[in-house]
């Protein structure tokens, strides 16, 4: 029987197969897979592969220097995520949101990979890469041509006190007229003012476990004052009801929101409120007898000085009702209270006058003393420098319009630009040593980017306000770009170009080992070991090398608290110079105009105030502002009940 295939059979077979295949998952699966494939290759990069390892370092983006535990992948091991180090007695395992993405920052789009000339263009800033030699030559020429300026060359060190800072000073010493400038610490400025009042009797820190009440003049206590690690300590006490937080702040900051009492004052009236409280303490007889004994000018001149700051007057200046002020003063006098100032509403540190007023309030409240937690602390041991050092001045201490060439070492612009700009001559040249085209670089003519955080061996000093000294190391986790230049190395080339060659700067490792040796020599303190979360006595650390090894592996050295009370001198409440007294009175009466307003929105403190400043923000942090309602809007941050009423 011959079977004949007709055309119809073929057609049937073809149609049937087509339908059959269409009903099978095959074409659809291919379709789906190709859809995934096309989308993947375009948008999703391949993740690193390889062994997962844990390495320790510290975030050196800001002076808080939080300890980091990095999860690294591959060879060479590169970090993919960060966490705090649990059990660390300094940082308490805490990190600010930026800290979780600090490893992103080295590859941030604003990262400068090498020396550059900075062009201010319409609609933005651009970095045009330049040869290192050319930049050095240009800066040297600028230094030469500013010979007439009071300070031809200054290095503004935004993280002062490091061994690298010392090394910079050593190199600078070779250049005639060159100085190092340090800004006031935002978070520790009240403590510094108290120290100044007491003729520098001791350095002070705060033991947050002690005071029953903290009166904060804008200090970001719930956002990380000094270091984010202080927040859990504060919260625990606040929740337990053993600490009352009174926030005097113009804006509704996260700390104001979380305070037990928020008193929204008019911006710039901190001094009036502090002196108003001082007035009440004095006039209502709330000053303890032992304080009255030590304060030489309490009865005579001080009484008349604070007389104008009676509650009614302070209410008119600051907007705080007189009755509230009265009850606050009485409450403060009855319990161990500490007053801390930090940060004006614009984001800049409080002025000298405000800090002095807050210091006066502290002294009247019996501080420093064991009950309120204002404790004396020892300095972090440092090796004796060999050779001459360039002079170090505070930013406030140099005259306006005096700096010819300013080098800025640091990424986080913790000082408002307006304060720095005032010190410059009209023809000044600014060189940014920040790794990014952000913050200081936006005001500079040249950029000589230093290694970014996590790219070079660095050290972490005692955080502002800490009750004891501490020290840790930040070993590098990321490769450093070829053309990045450490500030000391740039200074050395600059010195050579200026015809005053200095000795080559020492490498970080031997430098830091010298600090380790100094600590071992001092013989105090304990060593924190991560992993076991234990504290070793320094004697068991294995000498300077052993200490260095332990700190390289994520450890930290912590000083012992000062046990014996520090003998306190008699003191004057009012400053000795009549001009200083006059300016204190004038600031208190007139208030201080907000300087931050001109400094631009970048200085709006948000999140962890003062910790990140204007270093670039990792893109992933957009979640906090744009992709959630977590951050209050700029408008809300600027407005308070007082300003709303006035508007």
């Amino acid at each position: 029987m011959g079977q004949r295939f007709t055309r119809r059979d073929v057609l049937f077979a073809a149609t049937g197969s087509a339908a059959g295949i269409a009903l099978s998952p095959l074409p659809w699966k291919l379709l789906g897979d190709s859809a995934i494939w096309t989308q993947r290759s375009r948008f999703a990069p391949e993740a690193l592969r390889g062994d997962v390892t844990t390495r320790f370092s510290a975030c050196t983006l800001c002076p808080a220097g939080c300890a980091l535990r990095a999860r690294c992948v591959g060879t060479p091991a590169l970090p993919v995520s960060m966490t705090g180090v649990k059990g660390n007695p300094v940082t308490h395992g805490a990190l600010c949101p930026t800290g979780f993405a600090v490893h992103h920052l080295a590859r941030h789009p604003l990262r400068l990979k090498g020396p550059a000339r900075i062009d201010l263009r319409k609609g933005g800033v651009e970095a045009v890469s330049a040869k290192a030699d050319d930049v050095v030559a240009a800066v040297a020429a600028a230094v030469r041509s500013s010979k007439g300026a009071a300070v031809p060359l200054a290095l503004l060190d935004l993280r002062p006190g490091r061994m690298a800072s010392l090394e910079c000073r050593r190199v600078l010493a070779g250049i005639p007229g060159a100085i190092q400038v340090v800004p006031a610490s935002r978070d520790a400025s009240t403590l510094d003012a108290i120290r100044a009042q007491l003729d520098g009797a001791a350095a002070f820190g705060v033991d947050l476990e002690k005071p029953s009440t903290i009166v904060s003049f804008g200090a970001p206590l719930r956002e990380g004052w000094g270091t984010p690690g202080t927040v859990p300590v504060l919260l625990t006490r606040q929740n337990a009801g053993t600490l009352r937080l009174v926030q005097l702040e113009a804006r509704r900051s996260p700390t104001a929101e979380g305070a037990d009492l928020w008193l929204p004052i008019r911006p710039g009236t901190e001094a009036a409120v502090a002196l108003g409280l001082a007035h009440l303490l004095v006039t209502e007889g709330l000053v303890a007898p032992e304080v009255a004994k030590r304060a030489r000018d309490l009865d005579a001149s001080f009484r008349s000085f604070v007389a104008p700051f009676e509650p009614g007057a302070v209410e008119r200046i600051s907007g705080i009702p007189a009755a509230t002020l009265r009850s606050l003063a009485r409450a403060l006098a009855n319990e161990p209270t500490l007053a801390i100032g930090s940060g004006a509403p614009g984001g800049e540190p409080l002025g000298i006058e405000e800090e002095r007023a807050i210091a006066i309030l502290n002294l009247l409240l019996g501080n420093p003393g064991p009950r309120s937690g204002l404790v004396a602390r020892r300095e972090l041991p440092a090796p004796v420098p060999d050779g001459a050092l360039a002079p170090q001045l505070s930013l406030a201490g140099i005259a306006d319009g005096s700096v010819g060439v300013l080098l800025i070492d640091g990424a986080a612009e913790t000082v408002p630009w307006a304060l720095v700009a005032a010190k410059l001559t009209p023809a000044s040249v600014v060189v940014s040593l920040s790794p990014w085209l952000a913050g200081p670089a936006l005001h500079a003519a040249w950029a000589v980017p230093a290694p970014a955080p996590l790219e070079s061996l660095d050290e972490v000093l005692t955080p502002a306000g800490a009750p004891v000294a501490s020290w840790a190391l930040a070993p590098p986790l990321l490769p450093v770009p070829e053309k990045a230049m450490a500030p000391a190395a740039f200074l050395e080339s600059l010195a050579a170009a200026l015809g005053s060659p200095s000795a080559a700067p020492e490498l970080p490792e031997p430098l830091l080992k010298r600090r380790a040796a100094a600590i071992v020599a001092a013989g105090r303190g304990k060593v924190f070991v991560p992993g076991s979360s234990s504290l070793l006595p320094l004697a068991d650390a294995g000498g300077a090398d052993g200490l260095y090894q332990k700190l390289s592996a994520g450890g930290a050295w912590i000083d012992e608290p000062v046990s014996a009370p520090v003998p306190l001198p008699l003191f004057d409440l009012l400053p000795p110079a009549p001009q200083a007294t006059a300016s204190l009175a004038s600031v208190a009466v007139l208030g201080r105009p907000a300087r931050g307003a001109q400094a631009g929105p970048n200085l709006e403190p948000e999140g962890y105030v003062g910790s990140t400043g204007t270093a670039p923000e990792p893109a992933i942090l957009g979640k906090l502002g744009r992709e959630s309602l977590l951050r209050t809007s700029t408008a809300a941050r600027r407005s308070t009940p007082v300003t709303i009423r006035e508007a």
Partner: protein
Amino acid sequence: MHTAKKPTDGKNHRYGMVIDLDRCTGCGACMVACAVENNVPPGDPAANERTGISWLRVYRMNDGKPLPETRTAFVPVPCQQCGVSTPCLSVCPQNAVDIDQSSGIVGQIPVRCLGCRYCMAACPYHTRSFNWWDPVYPAEMRESLNPDVSTRTRGVVEKCNFCFHRLQQARAKAAAAGGKDEAPGEYVPACVEACPTSAFLFGDLDDPASDVAKAAKGEGTFRLLEKLGTDPKVIYRSAKPWVRQTAEGALPRNGKEEHRG
């Protein structure tokens, strides 16, 4: 994705967390740590709080009093990992949502997701995010993606899974050591690890010895929208009555909520 083999004879767990609202300062570290851990790309420049991708969102709430007396609290809301009549589970037309029986974790399988968003409409906690844009990783994230979590494409839904890959690692570690079960404390999601104030407690709610199980039964605990009967495994705690009442919805809405749109 959610087929981690239990080490033999390992018993089933019911992982959950207790979040102490009194310890949350609203800093957002958990959100950032979560996004870094789970390769969540930063949103498109046009993304906002309603179109961005957040596996964990921190809400802000207040007691409705006028400024400056207003009291504020923050509520971190990850996927609540509903244990009973899980709202998103039953609605998915193609089984892209599943529950891992050994851990109680509700998982999302993005490669199977069609992007119909029915699960998002069904979820009362709004913890699910849709990829409205192609995920674009900036240069800074390209070389630091977490190798344990696959990236997603446009047009699919994703959500918190209590860092399930960390559970898988903990189990692999236990199995390699010859153990039968992951050790308590060995498995901790990224947000829990990240919280600077230790507001999160995490662990097996069925293990009476665990801190989390004890805390879950402690004073001042509650769950969000408890009356819906979804048995969430995220438990909140606050000693402040106004926080509890507001978060539980016991207080009438003041009707003055901001109208957003």
